[in-house]
């Protein structure tokens, strides 16, 4: 009996216990190149959209950069080769980080008008603005509230947002300026958005990869947002955007555009609609890549940006005069809204 038991244990172990080991790429220029290409091939989530938008062929990218990696003998040069390969994805969420620095793809906003100047913004914010956890806000003379949310990297508390909305309580409308907001935490974006709803809303979907194939995705799961437990702002809101609105800020716009009494004006957002995840190469360099895409209510990706309701650029005349065309247009929109309301 004991012999049988021991024999069974031994056989079970021999039969079923193969080694589960990591990838077999070596820590050479070519090994790191192949490791990066394969990592993106298996985990990146926007191949179909990139192919449709600008004809990306990831296999062709491999063939283009492989000869460079084969002849590379220097880590600095390898970093540039790999960084350039990642730029072929045209995705601001895809980066390579090493001891030399981080590779970025910037064209998603650098090839577009800035549509924001902090010098011009000073003419509107003045010197008496308040600030709560990174959000600067003030009241314009015509009873319009103005809040500038520079980043979603700060973890807003309900108290922060309640205090801000309490201080703006006399305003008839709010201009919520998120231009140049490059993102941060989705949870912060959702917390801010939850201050503008009074009941739970369904605003989109999220999915993730279920396998290594380019089209292996889970079924889209609905995204809901519950109203804030603090103060809620139910008066008109105008959200100002430009091409530098990215990632969590793009997510914020995706929510806000589903709300009544909210208008988006300015330029298209920069996109970055997927939750990025991280991994590493054999040499320890870190890779960030888009992994879990979000979809809007029409099941459309917003990876390449969200168009505003009203497209406005800062004109060169206004730029010279220190006027922010987009803020001025937002004010006009609010006045028009109340004038129409009075007429009715």
């Amino acid at each position, binding site marked *: 009996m*004991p012999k049988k038991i021991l024999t069974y244990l031994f056989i079970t*172990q021999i039969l079923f216990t*193969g080694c589960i*080991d*990591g990838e077999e790429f070596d820590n050479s220029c070519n090994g790191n190149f192949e490791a990066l290409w394969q990592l993106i091939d298996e985990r990146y989530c926007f191949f179909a959209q990139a192919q449709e938008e600008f004809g990306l062929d990831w296999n062709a990218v491999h063939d283009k950069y492989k000869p460079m990696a084969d002849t590379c003998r220097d880590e600095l040069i390898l970093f540039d080769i790999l960084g350039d390969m990642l730029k072929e994805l045209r995705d601001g969420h895809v980066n390579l980080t090493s001891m030399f620095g981080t590779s970025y793809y910037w064209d998603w906003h650098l090839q577009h008008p800035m549509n924001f100047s902090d010098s011009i913004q000073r003419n509107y914010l003045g010197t008496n603005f308040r600030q709560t956890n990174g959000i600067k806000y003030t009241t314009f003379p015509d009873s319009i509230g103005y809040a500038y949310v520079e980043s979603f990297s700060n973890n807003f508390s309900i108290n922060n947002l309640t205090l801000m909305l309490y201080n703006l309580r006399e305003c008839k409308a709010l201009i919520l300026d998120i231009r140049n907001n490059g993102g941060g935490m*989705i949870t912060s974006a959702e917390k801010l958005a939850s201050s503008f709803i009074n009941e739970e809303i369904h605003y989109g979907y999220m999915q993730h990869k279920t*396998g290594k194939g380019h089209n292996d995705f889970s079924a889209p799961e609905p995204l809901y947002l519950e109203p804030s437990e603090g103060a809620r702002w139910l008066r008109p809101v105008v959200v100002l955007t430009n091409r530098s609105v990215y990632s969590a800020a793009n997510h914020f716009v995706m929510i806000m555009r589903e709300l009544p009494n909210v208008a988006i004006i300015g330029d298209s957002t920069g996109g970055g609609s997927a939750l990025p995840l*991280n991994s590493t190469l054999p040499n320890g360099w*870190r890779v960030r890549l888009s992994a879990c895409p979000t979809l809007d209510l029409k099941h459309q990706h917003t990876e390449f940006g969200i168009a505003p309701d009203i497209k406005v650029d800062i004109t060169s005349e206004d730029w010279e005069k220190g006027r922010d065309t987009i803020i001025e247009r937002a004010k006009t929109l609010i006045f028009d809204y109340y004038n129409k309301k009075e007429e009715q």
Partner: protein
Amino acid sequence: MRKALLIAITLALLATPAMSRVRHIVTDTIIPERIVVKSSLFGITLLNNLDTYLSNYNHKGLGINFSHENFRDARTGNYRWKYQTLFNATLGYATLGNNIQYTALISQSWSGYHPFKVAKGLTLLAGAQIQFEGGALYNPANGNNPAAAKLRTALAATGMVIYHFPVLRSEWIARYQVDIPLAGVMFAPEFGQSYYEIFGLGHAKGIISFTHPGNNPSWRHTLSLDIPMRIKRHSTTLRISYTADIYQSRINSIDCHIYRHTFALGFARTIFKIKRENRMNNHSPY
């Protein structure tokens, strides 16, 4: 006469506890002894971690380990069974290039064994084990996927070989134990699923997977040597042990291995659960 009767009753009352003690001693000699061996060991662990949810490459490093074992005769089955409870905790630090990965794992197992005496001094034990393990691998540099949580329970087959052998007029004990999980369940996110989806949004469908040796080929070997110390009539031994804890899984295209090789040192103490007089009849549950 009345006086004599009072004296007799008083003596009888005084004698009752003593008589009951005598009966108790008699009873004790009938019940087999119940002996518990408790050991606590501290060790150094060589770590080799892979979790493709965090990184496709091995992180290697060092850790510290604590284990506590309780091995005893079972009251059930006329003391023919042995029970073992084993607690283990590992804290570690592994690297790949400039990347750091922290490891924190605790495990607890409950085992029941049937012993088979095969030769003088040599006993084989076979039984079943319930395993529980929890913890995480943590890569602080990974933004939205900094950690891979480990939570699993399994029913395992377990076996032991115990060998008593004399060295310099004392009895040393060598022991080998192997545990192989056969069936269980574990927390396993899908290939590219973020923890934000699972815990932030509640999209938690399918995060528990059934495990078997095909997708979770793991095992744990422990080799230990107990060296008696001249303390308290051999009831304390110095224990030296080596444990190879090989945890592996391949679920939802996520490969994981946590290889822990632990060299530990500690003490094992034999505790007798009966009266002092019977300690002379000294034996171990081994």
